[in-house]
């Protein structure tokens, strides 16, 4: 790993394309960190990614690795298909909360349950970013969105789903962690989690899952800086930031 004193260079695994994300969007941050991981593990040339349907659908414009689209919610199943066909490649899916926890929940759970040796990166930003800020499975209680105009009412719309906790009831996953992009510390933690997840796959250990609590300043309707606060305070209160599964063993809170 680079030491601070060696400076910082734009990761080689990123293309030159300007990312289309809003200013301060967590997708940009995670893309950057993911590219750093591809660089550091030197796996860019043997990695195949799966982009979601969501704000990150254009991920293939930003990474210098092979990337496939998937139908909305099906990234884990598509990644399964790729990994089974090419077991020695590094395969990841990159998915939003609508994609992974709503329409694609079945595919998410079953890929984890089979212990597919893939890496799933889950961007939890509490909303459907791309379609204009609708309620997501992870929207907080009381949070106002385009489809919960008076705030999410848990009694009729449910409570925010905690995917790490849910997946942790399965036996096969090898590594599950939730991190929060809530500032500089969050960037460091997220990077570390992504690194661990890919290392898990590189060393053939099994399924890895990283949930990133991620800012969406546009639909949080606040500044990027305040978005980080929302992530670190409001979101982290509902979604505990910790390791849930380590080396195949559940870690209790």
């Amino acid at each position: 790993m680079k030491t601070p004193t060696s400076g910082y260079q734009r990761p080689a695994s990123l293309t030159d394309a300007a990312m289309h994300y809003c200013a301060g969007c967590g997708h940009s941050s995670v893309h950057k960190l993911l590219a750093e991981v591809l660089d550091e593990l030197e796996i860019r040339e043997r990695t195949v990614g799966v982009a979601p349907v969501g704000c990150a659908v254009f991920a293939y414009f930003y990474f210098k690795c092979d990337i496939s689209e998937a139908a909305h919610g099906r990234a884990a199943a598509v990644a399964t298909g790729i990994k089974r066909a090419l077991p020695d490649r590094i395969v990841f899916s990159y998915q939003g909360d609508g994609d992974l926890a709503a329409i694609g929940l079945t595919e998410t759970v079953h890929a984890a349950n089979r212990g597919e040796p893939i890496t799933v990166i889950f961007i939890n930003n509490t909303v459907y970013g791309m379609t204009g800020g609708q309620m997501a499975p992870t929207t907080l209680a009381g949070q106002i969105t385009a489809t919960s105009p008076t705030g999410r009412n848990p009694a009729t719309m449910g409570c925010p789903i905690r995917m790490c906790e849910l997946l942790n009831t399965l036996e096969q996953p090898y590594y599950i962690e939730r991190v929060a992009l809530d500032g500089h510390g969050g960037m460091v933690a997220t990077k570390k989690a992504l690194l661990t997840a890919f290392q898990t796959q590189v060393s053939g250990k099994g399924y890895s899952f990283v949930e990133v609590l991620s800012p969406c300043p546009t639909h949080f309707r606040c500044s990027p800086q305040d978005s980080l606060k929302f992530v670190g305070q409001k979101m982290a209160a509902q979604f505990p930031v910790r390791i849930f599964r380590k080396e195949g063993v559940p870690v209790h809170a």
Partner: protein
Amino acid sequence: MKKPEAAFFSRVLMMGNEAAAEGAIRAGCQCYFGYPITPQNELTAYMAKHMPERGRVFIQAESEVAAISMVFGASVAGARAMTSSSSPGISLKQEGISYMAGCQLPAVIINVQRGGPGLGSIDPSQGDYFQATKGGGHGDYHIIVLAPASAQEMHDMTMQAFILADQYRIPVMILADGRVGQMMEPVRLYEDSPPPAPPKPWALTGAKGRPPQYIRSLFMEERALEKHNYELQACYRQITATEIKAEETETGDCEWLIAAWGTCARISKGVVQKARAQGIKAGLVRPITLWPFPHERLARLARRSQVKALLVVEMNCGQMLEDVRLAVNGAAPVRFSGYPGGRVPTETDVLNALIELTKTNHHGKVEQPAV
């Protein structure tokens, strides 16, 4: 397509479903993803047993939606991949099929049709012709659709489907029915030496030694999707120009032309003999590729002066009927004899319909489906 002289086994009694599975294996299918549904369960079970034995991939997916998505992934990775299901499960795959068509991904999809709509029944049906040929998914696309009528053809066409899929980068559907799938017949199996797959430079295998690439069906740049659609259409025109297949029986002098596919074609073949024995000059045209459809062949046959009328026979309420009428385009009357809801007609049923047709007064007017 390779059709070896000396088959590996001379004859094996097999279910159509199993023959298709074995066909896929011998075609070099590397990945199979399925979900149980009657009447195709034997196919999935066969793959469950034989794919892992050969070190290939078998997954019982969590749903049909997952299965087609896994096929999508395996195809993205350049593997020969297949899924199979029956009517309701095929409906669930429509979004995925549209995606594969949009992404120009080869794959083989087997639909062993059962009675519908809804849960329907587990009896054989041909009720999914429209879905298969007109596009059950969204957007302008086509997939190649092959219609087998015997266990042997389940075997042959499944193998052929992989070749066509790779050649044109297109999903290919085997549109069978419960009868063909469940029936056991002696089958000559191909040699177990898979036809080589063409190079797949588009496949995502990691960007080693080449620029990174991607597979997508989303085209947001201005007019890019329009251009993409024209490219797809160009591919469809090429397939239409070269891959149409149909079979004719006793059409040389026929006055009464039956058009039927799959199981109904097989039954109608018997009917042609019986009709001729009664002095009715019957003939049969059997589209083997349902898409691309043999429009020109049908048109040519229908325009012959001695042809008095056509009878379309299907186990549905009139689906291929529309393609026949489009082909005939008013050149001869077209009548329909349909058997929906899981009913398989007998030779007598069809013969009676034919005899009735010969008794009707035809003055060039095309009849609407009578179902």
